[in-house]
């Protein structure tokens, strides 16, 4: 799984390299010339990483790759996935720690706020980490890492990928926890302005320490291919996990409506999930087996092949911080129809997307409008769309902006213990504040104990394998590059 994951990266690397070579952008020299002076050694912590699939995973991977290109040292820490445990190296010597922690609920580890300290501390010390960058508010491990990093006096950055409501009890609790974990974090990154507003409200933050850095997609991954689509029919593509939050129920309403109206309409649904049964029921009820194809779970490299088969991309999400799917679809030259929720309106300009209300009727209208345009041939050609979208979001850009954040953070001071306690108490309400202040103290004592057990001097420095100045590249990649190139895929 993870292997398959790495394969396309490997193949595409030259393509990624090429623009990277553009004047004065890449290489350690430039990074060293950066404002904060010198490269950072960043530790990305998230429960979600390959072989698991999703937005956060690819974000972490791509960001790390681009940062490595820019001469920083990056390592990823996540929990063990089945037999995939221990330490792995991905492309460009991106080092991944799969820690043996128990998984509690959909790929998020159980947290006691302490048990992960020994491991994480060991990693932070031996990798000489300067910035800890945690991802996704759903990941318990990320919050643990933030907590420990603050205790150890490291700079912390947090990227929030998701939106939360304020209505129900569960979100109230999670927001409280988020408040605790973000109140003394140096900087927060959100993927869209909506997400920024949301995070600021949830965690009661100063909006000034929250940056907006959108996600990106690899335009080289999603290139249009008009030959693949069959123009005798109209194909609507849906690629998403089949869960409630993605509005699959809406889809189950849309499909019969439109299929009855347009006999030449076809639906192509990629993805897996608990709501699949609903779609199957609809298909059976309306005898649409030939026109609605459910492809099941898709590998990342298959997504493009599915997308290019369609004319219109439909996204029925009920909430989205930053919808990567529509960008990918647009990059493949499809006309995007989507619900107007979350950050979606910010993602694409009006002429590329048709925004609808999250209701069957509105979505049907939007789709019909799209179909009408398609028939009248007023839609822009896939290539033009692709070339336009290509300029919007690139990982290189994301990496630059993230680097700025790191530089800014590097100048800031990490709160010492007493200030941190004050902050916690003053900021997170009397009860929670005190509880977590207590936790912080305990954590500090635990850390002191660990330092006494195995002093940092004993912990040996890991060999830095990342990027152009990695220990290994000097001796080996440097000498026989060709050898490695042909070796990696073969193995």
């Amino acid at each position, binding site marked *: 799984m993870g292997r398959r994951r790495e394969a396309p990266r490997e193949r595409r690397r030259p393509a990624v390299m090429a623009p990277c070579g553009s004047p004065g952008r890449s290489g350690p020299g430039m990074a060293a010339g950066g404002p904060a002076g010198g490269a950072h050694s960043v530790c990305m912590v998230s429960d979600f990483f390959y072989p698991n699939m999703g937005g956060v995973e690819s974000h972490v991977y791509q960001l790390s790759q681009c940062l490595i290109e820019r001469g920083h040292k990056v390592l990823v820490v996540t929990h063990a996935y089945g037999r995939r445990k221990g*330490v792995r190296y991905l492309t460009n010597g991106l080092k991944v720690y799969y*820690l043996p922690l128990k998984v509690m609920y959909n790929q998020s580890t159980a947290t006691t706020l302490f048990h992960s300290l020994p491991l994480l501390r*060991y990693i932070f010390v*031996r990798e000489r980490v300067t910035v800890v960058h945690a991802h996704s508010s759903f990941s318990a491990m990320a919050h643990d890492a933030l907590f420990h990093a603050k205790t150890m006096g490291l700079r912390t950055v947090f990227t929030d990928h998701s939106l939360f409501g304020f209505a129900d009890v569960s979100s109230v609790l999670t927001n409280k926890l988020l408040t605790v974990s973000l109140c003394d974090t140096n900087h927060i990154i959100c993927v869209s302005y909506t997400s920024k507003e949301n995070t600021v409200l949830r965690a009661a933050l100063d909006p000034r320490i929250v940056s907006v850095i959108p996600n990106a997609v690899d335009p080289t991954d999603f290139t249009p291919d008009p030959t693949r689509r069959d123009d005798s029919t109209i194909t609507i593509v849906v690629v998403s996990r089949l869960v409630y939050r993605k509005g699959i129920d809406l889809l189950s309403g849309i499909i019969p409506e439109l299929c009855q109206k347009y006999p030449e309409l076809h639906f192509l649904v990629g993805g897996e999930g608990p709501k699949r049964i609903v779609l199957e029921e609809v298909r059976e009820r309306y005898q649409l087996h030939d026109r609605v194809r459910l492809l099941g779970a898709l590998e990342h490299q298959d997504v493009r092949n599915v997308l290019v088969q369609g004319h219109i991309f439909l996204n029925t999400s009920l909430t989205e911080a930053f919808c990567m799917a529509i960008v990918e679809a647009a990059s493949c030259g499809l006309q995007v129809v989507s619900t107007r929720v979350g950050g979606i309106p910010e993602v694409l300009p009006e002429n590329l997307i048709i925004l609808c209300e999250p209701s069957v009727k509105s979505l049907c209208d939007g789709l019909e409008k799209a179909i009408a345009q398609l028939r009248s041939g007023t839609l822009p050609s896939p290539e033009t769309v692709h070339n336009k979208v290509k300029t919007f979001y690139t990982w290189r850009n994301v990496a630059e902006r993230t680097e700025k954040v790191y530089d800014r953070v590097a100048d800031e001071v990490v709160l010492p213990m007493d200030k941190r306690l004050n902050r916690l108490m003053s900021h997170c309400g009397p009860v929670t504040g005190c509880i977590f202040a207590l936790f912080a103290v305990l954590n500090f004592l635990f850390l002191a104990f660990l330092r006494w057990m195995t002093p940092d001097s004993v912990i*040996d420095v*890991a*060999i830095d394998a990342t990027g152009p100045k990695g220990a290994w590249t000097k*001796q080996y990649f440097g000498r026989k590059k060709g050898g490695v190139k042909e*070796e990696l895929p073969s*193995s």
Partner: protein
Amino acid sequence: MEERRYRSASGAPIALRRRQHSASCRELAVRCPRLQLRSLSAVTSAVWLAAYGLFVLSENSMVLSAAIFITLIGLIVYLHFVKIDQESLLVIGSLGIQVTSSYASGKESTTFIEMGQVKDVVINEAIHMTPFKYWKAAIRSPNSLLFSRLNNPNCLSLSS
């Protein structure tokens, strides 16, 4: 033939000896400190004290004899299966790699891999609750790894 001293991940001193038999044949040996009499006696006395305590509680001399047996057997097992004194890696050019680990009891376990079957040599860390052990694996066939635990990365970065 020179010798260097390092500290292992657990902080214990270990010595790396490298000797060049010929242009194409070299040997790397990592030697851990021998079993200290101190720790041995400490463990033994601990066990015996516990046994004596039991004996005092339950007026049963079986306990003492059992304790003696336990210590003896435990010691034998430890020396024979657990305590590794020296691990050596013999590299013979174009012939193969031979890994020998000699136990404290003198028992030696040797594995020889032909050069033709060595796909690649990988140095990697493994997570082992807190300390990070270093493994050197010569991968003979895709699915079988030959592990030899070398407690210090540097010696391998030297040899590689």
